[in-house]
């Protein structure tokens, strides 16, 4: 059982390396499970799903217990991404994977499904698929890792602990979907710099 033990130990180590970059996002008003988010830049930029962020004020809790009121910088419903800014510096950001993941590679999902404490699920990259809506398409990662409400905004990690995607929705038949890290990077690059941060899109 050495392999199984090595698997568990390495996975725990991987989670502990990523944990500082994982945040919990809660709406100050209203209810719902809230969701997860990721510290994308040490300068305080946090990425989550647009459907997690909603429109109202948000509170973001770090894994070290600190809590911040978050300012919404941008949101895209089409990509289901929202960019938040925390009033803090030198935050422990996650590492994004470069390039596209390979179908079949192991992935691990972290989040707060159903409001539970941080939970882990495993699977593989099941496919890279275009998903069309209103004549526009975006590429999504499909996974067979178990995703539940509350996993939204959390990371899909590869075997090196890099973020390959942001979990965005669970569908019937056990299929989960994630926004690829490269799309997140483009979104953050477009809206994240201080000099060109537009007001949150109301789309």
């Amino acid at each position, binding site marked *: 059982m050495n392999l199984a033990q090595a*698997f568990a130990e390495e996975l725990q180590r991987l989670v502990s390396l990523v944990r500082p970059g994982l945040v919990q996002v809660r709406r100050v008003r209203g209810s719902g499970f809230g969701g997860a988010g990721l510290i994308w830049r040490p300068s305080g930029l946090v990425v989550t799903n647009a459907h997690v962020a909603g429109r109202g004020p948000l509170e973001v809790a770090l894994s070290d217990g600190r809590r911040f009121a978050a300012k919404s910088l941008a949101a895209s419903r089409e990509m289901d991404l929202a960019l938040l800014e925390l009033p803090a510096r030198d935050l422990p950001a996650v590492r994004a994977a470069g390039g596209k993941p*390979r*179908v079949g590679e192991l992935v691990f999902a972290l989040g707060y499904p159903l409001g539970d404490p941080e939970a882990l699920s495993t699977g593989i990259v099941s496919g890279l698929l*275009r998903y069309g809506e209103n004549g526009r398409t975006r590429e999504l990662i499909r996974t067979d890792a178990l995703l539940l409400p509350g996993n939204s905004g959390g990371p899909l990690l590869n075997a090196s602990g890099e973020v390959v995607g942001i979990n965005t929705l669970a569908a019937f038949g056990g*299929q989960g979907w994630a926004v690829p890290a490269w799309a997140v990077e483009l979104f953050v690059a477009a809206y994240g710099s201080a000099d060109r941060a537009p007001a949150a899109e109301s789309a």
Partner: protein
Amino acid sequence: MDTLKSLSEGLAEAVRKGAASTVLVEARESYGASGYAYRADRVLTSNHVVEREGPITVRMPDGDAVEAALAGRDPASDLAVLRLQRPAASPGEQAQLEPQVGQLVLALARPTEEGIQATLGVVSIVGGRYQVWPGSFVEQVMRTDAAAFPGFAGGPLVDPDWRFVGLNTFGLRFGSSLVISAPRALAIAEQLDRQGNLPRGYLGIRSQESELPRGISLGRKQETGLMVIGVEKGSPAEQGGLLVGDIVVAVAQSPCAEARELVQALADKAGQTVTLEVVRGAHPVRLEVKPGQLAPRRP
């Protein structure tokens, strides 16, 4: 992180290699399905995804579209064989070892032109039998907990060395995918390729399991048979002289103590004259019958 990384790379590599013989089958209106090339010009797929006899297009991993004809189909095992117009496929290899419960498997699929899809799981059951409808069974069925997404039917289940372990057929049934094991699937494929279907012999009786009357000795350890409780008009059974009340105890020398043994014994006897061993009253008698062919039915 060596364990995670090497396992991850191994799985991705198995998907990449197995993807070469996983093809897209376009034979229904709703959504594409998958197929497994077991020869350069033969593709195994799931019967229920072949909704038309033509035109059928099979797309190779590189996008090459090849016209295909339906060589044969078997609704009972939910398998169908497609004959490609030209040998364009890169055939997979069959696993050498018997599948084992607990072994890691990948379900591969190509329901769209966007590339290979895969899910991971283990073999849950090996060697089971599956009742398709009363009296009709598929043998050597396996199950896996690898998720079956839309269009996964007809795709191969491969082991981490990307060898063909079985064919995904019915998709989710009772929460786990049904898989026809590789040896069984390939044997059925050969038969379908040769003759277009798998004829199943039938007698035209209704029967129930019944204990044999006291004092009857068959010269073997068999205490039950199948009492005839109805004979279809004009059926092979009626033509052969079978009567209500007869107890069928063997077909072509294979003992029938229960219904499934009768079904199995008749399976490949359509059109042949076979001897029925029957207990009539207190006497064993022998009757000659010529089982008919049960037309393949859609599930």
